[in-house]
């Protein structure tokens, strides 16, 4: 086999097997940092807080606990996102590279049997890739969920930061702990799905309201409608603005608001109103 093919297959093996998450490795060790924050998760934080002699010291300790817990939650969240991202992107990038490299190997080979083998292998890998692409919904959903988690976390974080600006009477450690729990929940898949469902429900409700705002009417051509139309458009085409103003004023004073003249002239449910309009306007 041509050396160039060997080289390409070597690259192929490396590319196909390596996992690329798109997230750079950390310079700090997450486990070590989490271990250093462990004391701030101890149940004694509340008694420690209460035992502080002054409000200033309590506030200082409160902020310390908040910062430590936020940091720990952030570290875990980032690892969580990295893990799920690595799992998915590793598959996709690896197989993409494989398909490309096999195509390239086939192109440089001058031996027809090698080309046939590579072509068959390429077809196999492409088939694998197709099956992975079936997971595209999962990939897309995951991206949306992570975005939602980040948005939820930001919302809760704003509250926490605002709370840290307050004194302990307005924002005690206990209140902060509740917000921190919400911050953690905001970074979970369940929290993201709940928020998406809530938003979807809200949008559906808004859409339903818009639909219910559509004014509908069944067409009915009658003599009163024709008379009013001639009053509105004397030549059948051009609007007489003075008469239009009179007609609109009559409609408004008779409780027919947010309705076009066209609907008023031709909708069945305005039949009686049209007869009255003709009489009132003396047409």
């Amino acid at each position: 086999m041509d050396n160039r093919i060997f080289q390409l297959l070597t690259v192929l093996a490396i590319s196909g097997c390596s996992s690329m998450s798109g997230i750079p490795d950390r310079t700090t060790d997450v486990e070590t940092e989490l271990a250093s924050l462990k004391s701030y998760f101890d149940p004694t934080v509340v008694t420690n807080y209460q035992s502080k002699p002054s409000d200033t010291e309590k506030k200082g300790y409160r902020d310390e606990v908040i910062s430590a817990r936020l940091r720990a939650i952030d570290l875990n969240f980032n690892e969580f996102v990295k893990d799920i991202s690595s799992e998915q992107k590793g598959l996709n990038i690896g197989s993409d590279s494989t398909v490309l490299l096999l195509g390239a190997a086939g192109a440089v080979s001058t031996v027809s049997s090698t080309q046939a083998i590579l072509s068959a292998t390429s077809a196999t890998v492409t088939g694998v890739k197709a099956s992975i692409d079936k997971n595209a919904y999962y990939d897309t959903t995951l991206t949306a969920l992570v975005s939602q988690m980040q948005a939820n976390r930001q919302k809760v974080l704003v509250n926490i930061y605002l709370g840290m600006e307050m004194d302990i009477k307005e924002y005690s450690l206990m209140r902060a702990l509740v917000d921190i729990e919400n911050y953690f929940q905001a970074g979970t898949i369940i929290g993201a799905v709940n928020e998406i469902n809530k938003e979807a429900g809200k949008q559906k409700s808004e859409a339903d309201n818009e639909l219910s705002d559509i004014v509908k009417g069944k067409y009915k051509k009658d003599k009163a409608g024709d008379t009013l139309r001639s009053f509105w458009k004397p030549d059948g085409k051009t609007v007489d603005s003075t008469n239009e103003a009179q007609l609109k004023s009559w409609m408004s004073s008779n409780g027919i608001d947010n309705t076009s003249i066209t609907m008023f002239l031709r909708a069945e449910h305005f039949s009686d109103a049209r007869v009255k309009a003709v009489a009132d306007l003396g047409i």
Partner: protein
Amino acid sequence: MSRVEELNDIPSSEVDEVVSDYQSEGAEVEKVEQPDGGWTVRAIFQE
């Protein structure tokens, strides 16, 4: 914000007049033929 009106069961002979009237009032108009041969005219008023 927009307001939508829908006038249904318009005979073919009258549909162009309805469209023209709605247009005179500044609406964006579309007409859709119904399965029974009548027409529905939908007018959208931008407010």
